[in-house]
């Protein structure tokens, strides 16, 4: 879940009153956000640098609230959004109407898209905020919001990258192109000298913040780039903006562009930027649209969000989604009975305009979903908002009426019974991990990997997570090693699953329930394990079936000592093996005393 840092005093000022921490936490809890931490700017820096906490200079520093918000509420990623949502929630503000600045189509700023962009980053959207009043606080918030969006919905700039520019330094029409790196030269943000694009990427390889994004374009023959009519570079998305059009506290008119591989998300990102910061425009909540013109040969492209492309597109798409929802679809799933007149104010608290839909015979509500609420996909999302606004604490608790009977999986009942038998035989149950290193699963138990057995992890974080175990042996030996000073004899067991490749299953692998037990003492304890095997084979005997005699045959498995090992045979099938653990295996695991080990496929005994 994303966390947003906001100044407490600025937030309370925006909310029009101050709160005690408990009161504010309570408000957050009801609304569905969480006050995660209370800190100060200096404290954050100290933590980053791992410095000792100094004596707090009370009242000197601004208190910062770190607020955790839902991952699909992009409109809550900045102070403006949180404050607006809470103001509306507590009834202090009307739902804003976001509107276009009325300008003739021909004077609309244009972004022309070239064909080649489809090879690297096919989409672009844009908008203009006119007459913005920046101060230090809202300017920082504006920058932070871009960061938060980049981290979250933009998936670290892979899906969408945002560029913001001082419109008064550049001239429309703009053009969104994809060019070979050698043909792009400009002075990037925070630099004084001009770079060629390929050299710039090389330069950023040592930049802690930017190096993470280089992989998005570095292997492409062409890089995306946005120019103005004078061939001034606005940005090299998704890496860096140009220095020329950089915004500052003095900027009045802001041009926002978002380039993307996912058009739906680009539109959400742009909407979030303009709906949040049009608050500071001379004409509040007013946005100037931008026209994006795709080349003729991209007119037939199928884009999931737009369907077949139109040649000219007006952005931002501030269209309000309208849903006609029967009242019962809202109230029945919650389990409350409210009338239309009671539901509408609840919807309003959640920023949803609503009015009764008349003439349908049944009660229904027409809901207008504003561009800030991209999280609302279905009437069930509207239903949730009503439930939140009503208050979860007030919903009467009821009991589901359906009559069902309980039951367990036979395999689990069976393995629980076997666990009982083995613990009654004086063994201690342990529980080990499915994931292990390749070496533990193979070389350390003297087994070769023929590639036909083990499930292999593609992206292990460390060698501990390379394969899924194909035997319980390494886990038990590791457990023994960690308790090597324990009183002898040590008798441990585990009942659990291993996983093997299995061509008969849809996913190509299947679990197998195993029982393993280990005996460790100054002598090998072969008879102890033999006794346990006898006991298990005795208790799994089914009534009226011939007894299982002769279930032991000599074996020759590498993890056991030669001539001190046996297979366990059940219905002509080998279902397990036991024996004195090979000294080379003991050595690999660092175990100084002899051990005997048994492993049985208990699924086969069910």
């Amino acid at each position: 879940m994303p966390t947003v840092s906001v100044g407490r005093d600025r937030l309370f000022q925006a909310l029009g009153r101050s709160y005690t921490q408990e009161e504010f936490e309570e408000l957050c809890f009801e609304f569905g956000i969480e006050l995660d931490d209370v800190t100060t700017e200096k404290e954050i820096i100290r933590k980053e640098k791992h410095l000792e906490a100094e004596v707090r200079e009370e009242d000197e520093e601004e208190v910062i609230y770190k607020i955790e918000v839902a991952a699909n509420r992009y409109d809550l990623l900045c102070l403006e959004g949180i404050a607006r949502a809470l103001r509306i929630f507590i009834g202090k503000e009307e739902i804003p109407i976001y509107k276009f600045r009325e300008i003739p189509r021909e004077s609309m700023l244009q972004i022309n898209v070239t064909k080649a962009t489809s090879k690297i980053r096919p989409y672009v959207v844009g908008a203009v905020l006119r007459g913005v009043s920046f101060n230090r606080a809202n300017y920082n918030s504006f920058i932070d919001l871009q960061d938060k969006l980049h981290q979250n919905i933009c998936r670290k700039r892979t899906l969408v990258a945002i560029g913001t520019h001082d419109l008064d330094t550049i001239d429309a029409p703009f053009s969104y192109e994809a060019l070979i790196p050698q043909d792009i030269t400009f002075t990037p943000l925070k630099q004084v000298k001009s770079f060629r694009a390929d050299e710039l990427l090389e330069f950023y390889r040592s930049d802690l913040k930017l190096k993470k994004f280089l992989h998005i374009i570095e292997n492409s023959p062409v890089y995306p780039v946005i120019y103005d009519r004078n061939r001034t570079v606005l940005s090299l998305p998704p890496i860096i903006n140009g220095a020329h059009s950089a915004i500052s506290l003095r900027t009045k008119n802001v041009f926002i562009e978002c380039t993307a591989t996912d058009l739906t998300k680009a539109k959400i990102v742009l909407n979030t930027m303009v709906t949040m910061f049009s608050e500071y425009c001379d004409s509040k909540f007013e946005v100037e649209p931008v026209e994006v013109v795709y080349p003729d040969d991209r007119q037939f492209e199928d884009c999931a969000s737009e369907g077949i492309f139109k040649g000219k597109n007006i952005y931002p798409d501030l269209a309000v989604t309208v849903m006609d929802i029967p009242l019962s679809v809202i109230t029945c799933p919650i389990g409350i009975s409210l009338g239309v007149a009671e539901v509408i104010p609840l919807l309003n608290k959640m920023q949803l305009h609503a009015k009764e839909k008349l003439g349908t015979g049944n009660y229904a509500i027409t809901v207008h979903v504003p561009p800030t609420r991209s999280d609302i996909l279905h009437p069930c999302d509207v239903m949730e908002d009503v439930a939140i606004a009503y208050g979860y604490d007030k919903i009467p608790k009821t009991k589901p009426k359906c009559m069902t009977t309980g039951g367990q999986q036979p395999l689990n009942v069976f393995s629980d019974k076997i666990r009982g038998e083995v613990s009654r035989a004086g063994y201690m149950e342990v529980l080990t991990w499915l994931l292990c290193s390749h070496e533990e699963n193979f070389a350390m138990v003297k087994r070769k990997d023929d590639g036909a057995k083990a499930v292999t992890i593609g992206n292990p974080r460390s060698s501990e997570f390379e394969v899924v175990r194909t035997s319980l042996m390494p886990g038990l030996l590791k457990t023994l090693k960690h308790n090597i000073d324990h009183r002898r004899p040590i008798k441990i067991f585990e009942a659990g699953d291993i996983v093997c490749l299995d061509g008969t299953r849809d996913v190509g692998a299947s679990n197998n329930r195993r029982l393993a037990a280990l005996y460790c003492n100054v002598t090998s304890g072969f008879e102890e394990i033999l006794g346990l095997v006898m006991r298990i084979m005795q208790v799994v005997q089914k009534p009226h079936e011939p007894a299982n005699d002769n279930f032991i045959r000599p074996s020759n498995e590498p993890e056991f000592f030669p001539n001190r090992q046996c297979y366990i045979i059940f219905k002509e099938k080998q279902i397990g093996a036991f024996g004195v653990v090979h000294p080379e295996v003991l050595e690999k695991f660092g175990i100084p005393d002899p051990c005997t080990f048994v492993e049985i496929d208990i699924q086969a005994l069910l």
Partner: protein
Amino acid sequence: MAEDSILGFLQNNEAISDSLQFAASAGIDHNELENVIKSLRGFEIVDAQEFQKDRWFLKEEGKTYAREGSPEVQLFNAVPPDGISREELQKKVNPTVFKIGSSWAVKKKLVEIGRQGVSRKVEYVEDKIQGFLQQIEKGEVVDEKDLAELKNRKLIEFRPLKGYSLRKGPKYVSKRKKAATDLTREHLLRGDWRDLEFKEYNLSAQVQPIQIGYLQPLLKVRDAIQSIFLQMGFEEMPTNNYVESSFWNFDALFQPQQHPARDSHDTFFLKVPSSTRELPEDYVAKVTRVHESGDYGSLGYRYKWKREEADKNLLRTHTTAVSARMLYRLAQQKSFSPKRYYSIDRVFRNEAVDRTHLAEFHQIEGLICDRGLTLGDLFGVLEDFFARLGMAKLRFKPAYNPYTEPSMEIFSYHEGLKKWVEVGNSGMFRPEMLLPMGLPEDVSVIAWGLSLERPTMILYGIDNIRDLFGPKVDFNVIKNNPICRLGLE
């Protein structure tokens, strides 16, 4: 012997004022006497007061001289009245006696050692040194001036000595009966148990551990939670399939393909077997549509859904993948019947491990599928379930989860910590998840999940998850773990 003499003496006398003197006069080693005193005191047969006094003790060399005589006198006695050659004398006494004895004998002018040999200078010597040493050994007082030489020659040392003064105790007897330690078969056969006194047990002594088997603490809690589900009429889902396709783990749950959980930073994707071999194609088509352009009244996520993403195999990140398979199977039945399902099994996350997070852990999941279920029903069933886990006070916080709407975090008031702590997640499955499966439109699913490890750690006060699960668990933790009392209240 020692016991008899103490008890016998006290029979006729009021007290033994000094056990040291008593031991010396009775010819009993004081250490032996001390053991008897302690035993008699333990049974309150005598009252014993400890005291300490300082006195002279013989050192090893002094003890030898007390026994054998001082070396100078030994040497003197080895010299015949008419003299002896040096060599002969050396043969007659041991080398230490010769070495020390000759120098002291010369110094004390007892003998003369010349070229001709060794000859006596006096006719008779009294061994005073030996006499003093024997007196000290017996605990008798020796004159300060006589101690001087003994001190110089380091034959004696000054040490504290513990003694006792004794008198009859409340349970004094002149003769103690022999106490038996255990009731044996012979006692029963002979019938003499009636006359025997049995030794008191020392109940504070360390008890020998008995040889028994043990169950793993985490699995004991699993068993307890499992029986809560069973009592509430829930049926277990088959969860023994750790390898899952992205389709069942994510896509079927209406989790978009760019969702952060599908990042390699969070999920273990597989090299072998890298992708799934088959999926139910009709169903895949419906899932594709609901993701790409929406359906069933949903706007969808409006992106290009990729089959190869759905085919990617992984280690399941939640047991909800199994729930999806079960609900799909339920939807394929001719007529719908309500279900309550549960599972408690292993899930995998490719996250950084720390004191509270492992790459694998156990997820508890419960769900109810029926027509017309409500959010109130979910709150009601959660209240019932968590009350049985000892968490009677619950609150629900709105949250986000891609496959449930509404989604709630479950908070429980912790009496010990005096605050609300998050104990699980819950919600109603989205129509975008249920309707493509083919479930009837009026069927809802309410569901909740939590980890098995977290409540177990809270229950037993364990703050490092590796002390509970995995190869580093200390056997003593398993052995000392009490029975799980969940569900007993």
